[in-house]
């Protein structure tokens, strides 16, 4: 069984098939369904569960705000909108309570314009989230802000419905 799995894994790797949608790896943050405008959903509607007999990892618990990992931005802006503050506060709290946990803050930009300039714009957004977390008490050693620019789009059409999904920062915990 092991050998078969290995073989299948390798065949999948080597096939490099031309699928039309990018396959999401395990390494990514969980993908959220964002067909509607991002503003419609946020506002911390989920409440953290009290610690219970169950061993659910709060970072992966869909009922826990910590499983939400993306902050969205307006065009040409790195300003953090008020609706995302509860999310950032929740992750900051988790990181202050788990001092060995580390996060990559991955900034992204929509596809318009130069790739390298967009890498820098994405970086600005990631830095904005990092600064806010630092003010909330998170140690700099627990965070690294980086950018994927326009290279990691969540949606690939060529209008605002997709561009808005790509102007974002993803919080990715080390080891995910």
């Amino acid at each position, binding site marked *: 069984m092991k050998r078969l799995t290995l073989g299948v894994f390798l065949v999948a790797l080597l096939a490099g098939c031309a699928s039309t949608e990018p396959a999401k790896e395990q390494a990514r943050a969980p993908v959220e369904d964002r067909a509607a405008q991002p503003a419609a959903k946020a506002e911390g509607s989920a409440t953290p569960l009290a610690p219970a007999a169950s061993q659910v990892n709060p970072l992966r618990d869909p009922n826990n705000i910590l499983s939400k990992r993306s902050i969205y931005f307006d065009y040409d802006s790195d300003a953090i909108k008020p609706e995302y503050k509860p999310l950032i506060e929740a992750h900051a709290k988790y990181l202050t309570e788990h001092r060995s946990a580390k996060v990559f803050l991955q900034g992204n930009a929509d596809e318009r314009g130069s790739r*390298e300039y967009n*890498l820098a714009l994405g970086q600005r957004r990631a830095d904005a989230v990092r600064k806010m977390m630092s003010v909330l008490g998170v140690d700099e050693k627990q965070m690294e802000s980086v950018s994927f620019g326009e290279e990691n789009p969540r949606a690939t059409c060529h209008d605002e419905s997709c561009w808005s999904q790509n102007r974002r920062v993803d919080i990715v915990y080390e080891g995910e």
Partner: protein
Amino acid sequence: MIRATDSAKPLRLALLLVLWLVAAIPARATLTIEISGGAALQIPIAIAPFQGEEAFDERVPAIIAADLARSGQFKIVSTAGINPLPQTPAEVRIGEWKARGASSLVIGNIVRQPGGRLDVQFRLLDTVKADPQAPGGVTQLAGFSLPTQPSQLRLTAHQIADIIYEKLTGEPGVFATRIAYVTKRGNLHELQVADADGANAQTVFRSREPIMSPAWSPDGSRLAYVAFEAKKPVIYIQELATARRTVLANFKGSNSAPAWSPDGSQLAIVLTKDGSSQIYAINADGSGLKRLTRSDAIDTEPSWSPDGRYILFTSDRGGSPQIYRMPAYGGEAVRLTFQGSYNVTPRYSPDGKSFVFIQREGGRFRLAIQDIASGQVQVLTDGGLDESPSFAPNGRLILYATEQRGRGQLAAVSSDGRVKQKLSTEAGDVREPAWGPLLKSRP
């Protein structure tokens, strides 16, 4: 299918992955190039079949003709109906070629030598006026014999096209150069290198994470590029002959935009380790980091002048992204672009007198070229999503990325905007082209 003992499995798997990632594998997609437009004055030239060419798969005269035609500076005159075709200067009847409008004629032959070697011999002849003093009355403009082998015939043909091009235009030809570019199919990203005419595409690096900003070392032996397999942008340098790969820069934050100095000893790079995106210089072995820009803004996309004295770069320190120039050691930057609110991706021309860049106008991104001394700007393309311009090493053509029918494709435009080329692949997106250097010789 692998057979492995349980204890060796992880090591074998890791080894296989490493080999798979870096092996130079012939790429599945090939590039085809079509040309439109042409130079104001095209040189009419005829290329006769070479004696002995039928014995080989690669047809040397056809490759030469395709190279010259693709430059947009030549008009290929047909040899059909000329009977018999001349094989020596003495057999050339100038009147026949002049009547077809050819001002030059190329004849040649391929001679087999012992041990599988070949000599490809050619002569470039003037068919404008007879010279009674010359053998056969025909002036020879150039004539060479190039030793080669059957496996190298394409390269030899490109070298002959370069000689002809230089003889008739006065500029070096770029037909024997190579280009690098990135392809994306699904989540498979590949860095590929191909001949300048799109043939012989090889994958030099592949990854399930993005690849960006390939940059050739000035001697053509290495490529610097940005890859994301560490979940952040890191700059690597890969030696093409050996596929050996080293990390040039993996500082905290993002590492990107590598640009080689003209002598190949240093690179300008962009780091965010000290705050915003800033430009640094670093030795090619990763030592000696030196910060060059000091702003709170975004400074990125460095490009060295050919004499090594200046660096052009993109900065939004003035409120919008514009192009600036600073001394190569850092120091005060001067703003160069003043039209519109978005001018990015400057690339010095090989003669250092102008730079190509991307200009946004009315929401559309297009190529433009600016003369440094006068500040004059000429728009070169009318695409909507043009990006990543890269000069050919003779400064004549500019390779860039664009969007055709929803897919990323490459294109080229001459530095005066008159000649246009479309380079297409079979599947997936192509982006981030980089034109390789002129080489004194190739192995």
